[in-house]
């Protein structure tokens, strides 16, 4: 079996939906520029690529048609490079990485761009024409439950107080602010062209966030609830991309692999507590990798909400100090389709940076799922 490695990672700046600097940038342009940026940084011979596998949670409108193919063409990749679009909601671009690794293992290609994009400014969450199935809704209303409500359910079921969630959010903001201040995010960001000029910096972080400011916010989803806008990831625009290739390909072309993909998994859970999805998925992936949570040096856990992040950290027995060391989605933002490639690419690059051996990247998925990837430093 050929082992797949992650040999490069880049992303666009992540900015707030509707009011951020990328709000007026088309998602297909955003993804194309990010991918072109990665290809250029790695001095790849793009003709070697088998395909662009692009994750997107709401692939319609400007994100519609076969977005991956259009983005590949738009990015100036050779026409010989294939492209297909993957929808696994928030897990879309991590799924793209898994598919690439699977193809490599099966001998069905040597090098892939696994990428993701979401313009939450330009395509609304839920899409333009949300048409739930009345029969399924009658049987299982939670299948269509809003994400905020699931976060409340997790907070209640795992008994996670508002103060704990707020402390977690403050820490996420603090870590992101420190990473930005120390220039640790600079090299992963590809500047993006907008009508108003180049966009080079993340727009979501609120470094001034304190426990006091968060305590003053109203619950965002339920009058009786504990989840606020401050303890949720913001609606975000952004794109991300990684190069997934065989170890041989990397060696042959002088690429420095950041990590090898040791194991991957996806798992379902009850839709009304979708935020706990990473637990089952991570347990499966760790078991497939033959390691335990205690062996992990780096964890990238998508912070859809503070409540589900804390529940996952607790149930997986993770060391909070190793989770999201450059800050998570509460501070950096969560452009649905782009998050998976960001946190997987980030985990790989953190292994390289910290010298740790094992990393886990995992996230929850609306509708009640989790997805996880275990990496090992090369």
């Amino acid at each position, binding site marked *: 079996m050929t082992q797949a490695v992650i040999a490069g990672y880049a992303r666009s700046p992540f900015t707030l939906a509707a009011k951020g600097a990328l709000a007026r940038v088309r998602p297909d342009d955003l993804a194309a520029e990010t991918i072109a940026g990665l290809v250029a940084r790695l001095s790849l011979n793009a003709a070697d690529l088998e395909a662009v596998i692009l994750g997107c949670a709401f692939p319609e409108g400007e994100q519609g048609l076969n977005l991956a193919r259009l983005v590949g063409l738009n990015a100036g990749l050779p026409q010989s490079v294939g492209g297909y679009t993957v929808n696994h909601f928030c897990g879309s671009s991590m799924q793209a990485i898994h598919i690439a690794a699977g193809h490599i293992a099966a001998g069905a290609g040597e090098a892939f761009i696994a990428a993701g994009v979401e313009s939450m400014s330009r395509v609304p969450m839920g899409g*333009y*024409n*949300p*048409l739930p199935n*009345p029969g399924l*809704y009658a049987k299982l209303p939670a299948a*269509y439950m809003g994400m905020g*409500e699931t976060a409340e359910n997790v907070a209640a079921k795992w008994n996670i107080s508002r103060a704990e969630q707020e402390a977690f959010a403050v820490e996420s903001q603090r870590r992101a602010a420190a990473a930005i201040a120390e220039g640790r995010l600079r090299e992963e960001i590809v500047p993006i062209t907008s009508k108003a000029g180049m966009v080079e910096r993340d727009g979501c972080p609120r470094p001034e966030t304190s426990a006091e400011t968060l305590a003053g916010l109203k*619950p965002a989803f*339920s009058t009786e609830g504990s989840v606020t806008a401050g303890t949720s990831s913001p609606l975000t625009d952004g794109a991300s991309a990684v190069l997934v290739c065989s170890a041989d390909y990397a060696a042959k072309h002088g690429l420095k692999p950041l990590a090898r993909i040791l194991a991957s998994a996806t798992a379902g859970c009850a839709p009304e507590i979708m935020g706990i999805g990473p637990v089952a998925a991570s347990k499966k992936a760790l078991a497939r990798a033959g390691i335990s949570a205690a062996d992990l040096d780096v964890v990238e856990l998508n912070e859809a909400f503070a409540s589900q992040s804390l529940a996952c950290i607790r149930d997986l027995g993770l060391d909070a100090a190793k989770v999201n060391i450059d800050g998570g989605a509460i501070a950096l933002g969560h452009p649905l389709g782009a998050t998976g490639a960001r946190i997987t690419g980030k985990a790989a690059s953190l292994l390289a940076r910290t010298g740790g051996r094992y990393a886990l990247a995992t996230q929850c998925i609306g509708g009640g799922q989790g997805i996880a990837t275990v990496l090992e430093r090369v």
Partner: protein
Amino acid sequence: MMESIRKAAIIGAGTMGAAIAAQFANAGVPVLLLDIVKDGTPNRNALAEGAIAKMLKTDPAPFMSTRAAKLVTPGNLEDDLGQLSSCDWIVEAIIERLDLKQALYKKIDAVRKPGSAVSSNTSTIPLAKLTEGMPESFKRDFLITHFFNPPRYMRLLELVSGPETDAKLAQSVARFADLMLGKSVVSAKDSPGFIANRLGVFWLQTGVVEAMELGLTVEEADAIMSRPFGIPKTGVFGLIDLVGLDLMPHINASLAGSLPKSDAFHATNKDIPLIKTMIAEGNIGRKGKGGFYRKGPKGREAIDLASGAYRPVRKAATPDGRDLRKLLENSAYAWRVMGPTLAYAASLLPEAADDVHAIDEAMRLGYNWKLGPFELIDKIGADWLAEKLAKDGMKVPALLDAARGQSFYKLDGAKRLYLGLDDAYHELHRPEGVLMLEDIKRATKPLLKNASASLWDIGDGVLCFELTSKSNSWDAQNLELLGKAIELVPQNHKALVIYNEGAHFSVGANLGLALFAANIAAWGEIEKLVASGQKTFKALKYAPFPSVAAPFGMALGGGCEIVLHASAVQAHAETYIGLVECGVGLVPAWGGCTEMLSRYQGAKTMPKGPMPAAAKVFEMVSTATVSKSAANAKELLFLRESDGITMNRYRLLADAKAKALALVEAYAAPEPPTYQLPGEDGRVGFGMAVKEFRKKGLATPYDEVVAGELATVLSGGEADIIDRPSEADILALERGAFTRLIRKDGTLARIETMLTTGKPLRN
């Protein structure tokens, strides 16, 4: 003088200056807003930019749309003075200091283009002083344009020309203010306080002094000095709270300083220690901690005029104003305030204005009095008033004396006449191009008429349908008359205008009648009324002639639906239109749903598919969205991009008639729309959204019931997404939802609460 005003500048970004700039922008005119560079701030435009940002958050909003806000360019007086050279009208609205104003005029004069108008918004400084020492060319182009606060909403503009002011320039400014800014321009003389504030301040000051001397509470004083005289319910004390107590001493001192010793104002301009204390304590009115009234921890409070302590508001009875003589006889306060005020008004001619009409108009539009002082005198009787003044030892002004045995206004056939200072009657002319239904009604007989509506011939083949019911609400009678009008127009006429001159265009269906019918279970009658409204409005829509609705003020519920069915709309800029039925537990059922769905489905900016239009209309109607202006109504698609907006209320009918005539030649009735709607899938989606709103505390249990019925209509009922339901299908769904809801207690409770309190019940 410039032919038209294409660009303007306002100097001074204070409350007035900034809001005047906003009104130019509302008129679609680019405007420069300049202020000084504030020391110590790196942003040299901080004052103007701050003022614009603040206005975007102010309620009531100075801007009519976000689009308008973009027409205001902020700047400062050091870097941007040169830009004045491209402006056709420069309005100075800086603080009331003569030296600063004169210095500014010199700077303006050095850069402005020849023939551009320069005006001051001063309310206290005479024109003669402002232009002292300025060159003749400046004096020719200079005038005072005194706006009232807030400039978007107050319709009065006092215009003062100097002896050297170019008459053509003044005329051009007045015309622009009338047509574009929507103001009624009243020519005032260069006398202290001009007209409205001269009389208004006298009235307010007398109102305070007399309430204290007579030992009245503020509530008692305001109850007398408001509704009975056709004055807004704020009365004296409530109005001072609104304006700001802190302004009173300045305005009073300024007037006292400039009025001749013989002026009656001096006698009433007494120091009021309570006001001084209140100002010192920050109780300067609504913009401060509180005023004569304030919001207390347990509800509204009022100040005790004797002790200065706040206590809960005590509701005072409103006296009957039908017989003003009786009121003036029986209420010492009414007499001791209104007697001198009316006498003072009569003494202001010719010093402050040329005729009684100018003073009446100034008080109607500057202080929102229903009747001006001379109209009030006519109601009371000039003889009676003169005698009572004399009996009480007060001086009877010459003009009032001259009016004995006659009235200030009278009719000669359809002509309105006013009593001139020469003791002769003169005809009162409307400004050129103004057409008022009031005038037509005096001169002609209606073609059709019943207790709730009339049909008038407004000339050139155009008929005007006028609602005459209470609050212009819709009932079986006016629907019937509209039906007859639709049949009548094609016989001998070309077009129909729907218009009236009430306080609001129409507040919707007559809820009192609906509640009455529901209470006696006259379901058949209710269903008949719903069906007849649909039939009549659709008959209007598909009629072989063009119709133009001319809404102004509120156009709610059925009042909105008639507008949606007209071929075109000419709306007053201040039109507050919306489908508010859900607030009373109902859904729009006179075609409001069909029209809004078809507008949103046809909108180029909407995504394709069965859901977006339905979702947008669902959001708007379930939350009873009402436009904040006609411009905003276009953004909400209550009005089409091609619909017209009239800035001046007096010009609405003329513009509507012109619009109707313009449509006549090529007119073809529209084709009925078909729809693509999401059916049950969409209904589930809407239901989910409402549940989330409930969780967030933004919807009540009964909102969910009403929204459920609305969802049924807007999703197309049992339609599948491959079906193409017709307008008739959606109309049937409207009727079904309406008749189910009107039978529910939750709906009846909402209607009853609305009728008794005027506020929605959140059950």
